[in-house]
């Protein structure tokens, strides 16, 4: 039985048996993290937590998975609100903690660009699926900003040494390169085959006993310190401080004009 449930138009939430699928749905904005989309994701994740689903798939509509923070919102000269950056980053930090502590196993199905915070979101998930031509990475330093909110999750996903290189060097990489360093767990050869691979993996995961899955996930969360909220929340403050510097604002403004 497929049960279409629309939490809000910014995010679509679908339940199909024990598999829930959350789709970020602002394709014209490459699903960038605006207040609207982050609020809608919080609501959708809350709904999934209380549902019978044992697997949650997160994906994006259109060509991008998620382009990262909404630059229009964090550019002070455009938003006119110097506190918007910190509010968004705090909301993102809370969302990552909420997703990580879900009893459901989470799968990121990276359909296209997963950039900055969008790529961080994939690292919060338990399993990441993508395709060879997707673009993933952490170009924050290229804009003079600091990926502090997502850094703890990237370190857990990649290991500290590889995460250090990926976040300090910036830029983006292909899905294939992401697969080589452990950012992507399962790689489809192209976009056309991603959905069937995602479905296969989600159904295989959903075969597990829900109690066994959530107990295992909870244990892994305890072992790797995922339930320690302080690092991620402090990351939001630090990220916001760097974001507000004149150098970072100038680099962001230059990027917007491109």
């Amino acid at each position, binding site marked *: 039985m497929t049960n279409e449930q629309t939490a809000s138009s910014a995010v679509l939430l679908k339940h199909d048996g024990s598999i829930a699928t959350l789709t970020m749905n602002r394709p014209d904005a490459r699903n960038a993290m605006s207040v609207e989309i982050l609020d809608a994701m919080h609501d959708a994740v809350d709904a999934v937590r209380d549902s019978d689903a044992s697997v949650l798939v997160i994906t994006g509509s259109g060509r991008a998975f998620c382009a990262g923070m909404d630059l229009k919102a964090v550019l002070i000269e455009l938003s006119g609100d110097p506190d918007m950056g910190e509010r968004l980053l705090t909301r993102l930090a809370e969302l990552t903690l909420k997703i990580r502590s879900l009893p459901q196993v989470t799968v990121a199905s990276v359909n296209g660009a997963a950039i900055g915070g969008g790529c961080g979101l994939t690292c919060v998930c338990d399993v990441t699926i993508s395709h060879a031509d997707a673009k993933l990475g952490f170009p924050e330093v290229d804009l003079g900003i600091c990926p502090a909110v997502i850094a703890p999750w990237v370190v857990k996903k990649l*290991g500290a040494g590889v995460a250090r*290189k990926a976040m*300090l*060097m910036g830029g983006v990489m292909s899905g294939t390169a992401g697969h080589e360093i452990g950012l992507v767990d399962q790689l489809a050869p192209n976009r056309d085959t991603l959905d069937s691979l995602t479905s296969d993996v989600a159904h295989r995961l959903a075969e597990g006993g829900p109690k066994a899955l959530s107990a295992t996930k909870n244990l892994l969360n305890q072992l790797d310190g995922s339930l320690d909220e302080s690092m991620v929340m402090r990351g939001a403050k*630090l990220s916001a401080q760097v974001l507000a510097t004149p150098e970072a604002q100038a680099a962001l403004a230059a990027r917007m004009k491109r």
Partner: protein
Amino acid sequence: MIEFSTQTGVSVIELARPDKRNAMLPEMLDQLHEAIKASHDALALVILGQGKTFCAGFDLKACAADPGGETMRALLTGLSRCVGAMRDHPAPVVLGVHGAAVAGGCALLGGADVVIANRTAKLGYPVVRIGVSPAVSSPYMLAAMHEGVVRARLLDTELIDGSQALKLGMIHELCEETGDVRHRTLEIAESLASKPGSGCKATKRWLNEICSVSGERAGAGLNASLELTGNDEERARLAALWGAS
């Protein structure tokens, strides 16, 4: 024994004892530490070796000639201080391994943020063979690689090549040719130095906090290596290596 230069925000430190494969002496590590400190204003720091290989590790001939073990102790202490200073350096540290990074030379990788090596480079910590404990390196390696990998690398005396080191996360990028390492290392450093604002430094500082190597842990590793220094096993093995009495 150390050469140091700075150009357009990139500081370059070179191990400069090429006729001895850049084998480390205590005064060389003192100079290295001073150079790392002196480069604190740089936007990126590069560490390279001159000659045919990056670094062969401690100068064991000097260690064998000092049966009291003072040379070995000074080397272990100097190495720990240098790796800590690399990690604490405000800017990213890029290290290029050409040819070989062995024992103490390989330990320097633990302080670097980005490591490049050529495909056939030899890397490893074959120091238990001479009765020395690589404990001094372990806190920094554990902050960079998976625990299982670190155990195998520190206890097994095997040297691995660049390809395998990439798979294990010991290095981050391969060059096909030995001669390409220097160019690529400088290129990465220049790219890092050209990034705007304080994002890179803030990110390094934050990563150091997330995956911190506390002074206490670094000290415990050094002490474990120091405690073993001067024992009969080490003296006998070093003497055998150099045919000394």
